[in-house]
């Protein structure tokens, strides 16, 4: 099986992109990623997205974007796994190339959340909850995060205020990322003053409603042109699932799908946790990031929150931790355009490997891991990325 190489990437800034529709946004990222590549050489377009129907009233999305991007005629498919759509689309793309089926695949993640206002967005996001056990009783995603935060803080014996540090650090990093939605730094006091959304959860704990489109091009090694910038190997993409509803889980503050997806990906890639230099994890809320660290073995149970304190006390220098994480602001501050986020995470890692991360540049990593959750880690995909060029 050939190695799968990421030969190009492009993304729009994340933000409230009022003047774009989901079609124009997706097409823009695809065209930018393709650049001067002959569109007739594309075998497949995969589109990671969650809410094209729920908010934009558009299904048949892949065909619509293929047309707008000027590559109508190719095979195209929308991939849905709630917020993990981007990661899931990478899994499908990786499989198509690794199997020899395709020699050039475009994997796009796109989301246009701002076409809805207020409660419409909340209702749409609740589609990722278990409808029968949760959503139909009024549960929202902020509600789930609130429950998890309360349970976590109680067992870990920590104050929700400690979790707020994650947002402070996220904004600090995003201030150096030109593609980030939030370029403003915030203080612990700003966090304290932000309105309460639900118990133990403040506005500044929550990833934003936003728009974005990000695309990568995947090719097998044997047709890879060494001159192409940004080349890295997408070594493995592996997924795992768990119960959708918190009410069905035996231990809500443990994320077995995150742990298993990571284990499978490392197994396929034949790497261990210690060899991974940079992680881009699912920080839609501080509690999901703390639980991610624990699921990946980067912290013990109920100790993940201490990493935020270490970030803060180190002044952002993470060398003492042994790994880097959320280098470009993460879901909280770079932004979380749902189905596109998995691709943004990959691009964050690619930029670090490229040396093009600007103010946020870390020592160029050799290995990176991206992990994205669908819902409350009900469907998780982990990608392992390896730098090729030195």
């Amino acid at each position, binding site marked *: 099986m050939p190695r799968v190489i990421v030969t190009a990437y492009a993304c729009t800034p994340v933000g409230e*992109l*009022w*003047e774009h529709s989901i079609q124009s946004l997706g097409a823009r990222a695809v065209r930018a990623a393709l650049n001067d590549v002959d569109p007739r050489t594309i075998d497949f377009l995969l589109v990671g997205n969650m809410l094209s129907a729920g908010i934009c009233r558009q299904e048949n999305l892949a065909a619509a974007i293929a047309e707008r991007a000027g590559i109508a005629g190719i095979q195209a498919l929308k991939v849905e796994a709630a917020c993990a759509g981007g990661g899931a689309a990478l899994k499908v793309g990786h499989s198509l190339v690794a199997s020899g089926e395709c020699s050039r695949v475009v994997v796009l993640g796109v989301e246009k959340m701002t076409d809805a*206002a*207020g409660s419409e967005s909340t209702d749409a996001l609740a589609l990722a909850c278990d409808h029968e056990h949760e959503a139909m009783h009024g549960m929202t995603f902020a509600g789930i995060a609130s429950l998890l935060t309360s349970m976590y803080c109680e067992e870990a014996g920590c104050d929700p205020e400690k979790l707020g540090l994650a947002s402070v650090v996220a904004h600090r990093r995003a201030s150096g990322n030109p593609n980030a939605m939030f370029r403003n730094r915030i203080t612990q006091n700003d966090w304290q003053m932000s*309105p309460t959304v639900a118990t133990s959860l403040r506005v500044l704990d929550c990833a934003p409603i936003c728009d974005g489109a990000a695309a990568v091009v995947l090719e097998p090694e044997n047709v890879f042109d060494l001159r192409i910038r940004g080349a890295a190997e997408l070594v493995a993409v592996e997924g795992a699932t768990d119960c959708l509803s918190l009410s069905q889980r035996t231990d809500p503050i443990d994320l077995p799908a995150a742990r298993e997806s990571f284990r499978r990906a490392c197994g396929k890639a034949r790497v261990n946790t210690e060899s991974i230099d940079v992680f881009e994890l699912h920080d839609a809320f501080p509690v999901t990031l703390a639980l991610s660290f624990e699921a990946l073995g980067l912290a013990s149970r109920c100790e993940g929150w201490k990493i935020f304190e270490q970030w803060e006390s180190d002044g952002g220098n993470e060398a003492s931790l042994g790994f880097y994480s959320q280098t470009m602001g993460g879901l909280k501050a770079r932004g979380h355009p749902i189905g596109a986020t998995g691709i943004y995470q990959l691009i964050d890692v690619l930029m670090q490997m490229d040396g093009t991360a600007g103010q946020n540049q870390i020592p160029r990593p050799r290995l990176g891991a991206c992990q994205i959750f669908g819902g409350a880690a009900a469907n998780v995909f982990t990608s392992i990325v390896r730098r090729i060029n030195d």
Partner: protein
Amino acid sequence: MSSNCTAALLKPTSPAFAMEFLETEILSIGTYVPDCRIASHLVRKTVAVDERPRNKSVPGFDEDALTMAVAAAKTAVSRLIDENAAGEQLDLLWCASESKPYAAKPMAATLVAALGLSRYTSAADLEFACRGGTEAFLASAQRVESGEKRVAMVVATDVAQSRPDDELEPVAGAAAAAIVLGKGLQGICRISKGVSYVSDMHDFFRRDGQEYPTHAGRFTGEPAYFHHTALAAERFFAINSVSPADFDHMVCHQPNESFPFKLAERLGFSGGKLKHSMVVNSIGNVYSATLWVAIAKTLSQCKPGETICCISYGSGAGADCFAIKATERVRRAAGRDLPSIEHTLSYGGYLRMAARRGVR
């Protein structure tokens, strides 16, 4: 790719000239604000940490946009310095509102009758959301300037509508303002020509037969309010060869307490120039009356000769920018007209009032 909606400044079609004022002046301003208040935090859904006092005005069970318009108009007439401006001289009356009691029956006609004006008065209603009053003002000023009309009255009045529990509800207030314009009749304020900027938008609208308006959330910010006000103001500055530094005060539409300061910063006004004009924290957003109540408040505190940059905004959407300049008579005929007794309602009282008015 940029999410900034501000377009390139349009080239003015007329050559630049120093800011000129019309011969037509504001003769008086009268405002009416209902005497009931409710603290906004009682109406707000989310719990905000910052609990500075914010109130909004609440119309009584027997009040509506028309009753408030009559009250404001009578106050404006009573304030006229030159009696000759009243009575039969007043031959143009326009009323702006987005909460008319009748979808088809003009408030202006009732006002003509209530004020005892001649039946030969030109009268009509206008609507452009919160901007209707300034559009009526700029247009009627020209009818007086041309000599076609002698004295005009413009009334801006609204009972601000919002869906119950909507994010607008904490600031949706009620008030009316009436402005009298004329030439050579001891005016309190000079007026400039205005610049308008209009585009087709759906940031806030109410369909015929729909009880409550639809509000497009964050879309009402950058692409709506800021885009239109900034474009109108920038063109006004360019045409008149003026800049924010040339003005003593700035008054703009106030959908909330933060937008005016952001607009001021964007245009280059210091925040201090808004100091006298903020009304939203005490009476709420009173839609088309907001700008005029704010202008009245500013005039009641400014000195003769001071200039005020006025910027309105109406959803749907459009903005006007114009300048006014206080004369030596300014303090004699403008005031805030706050009721002498304010009744602070509980949330239950607020609901009962609304129920008796027949809403909610």
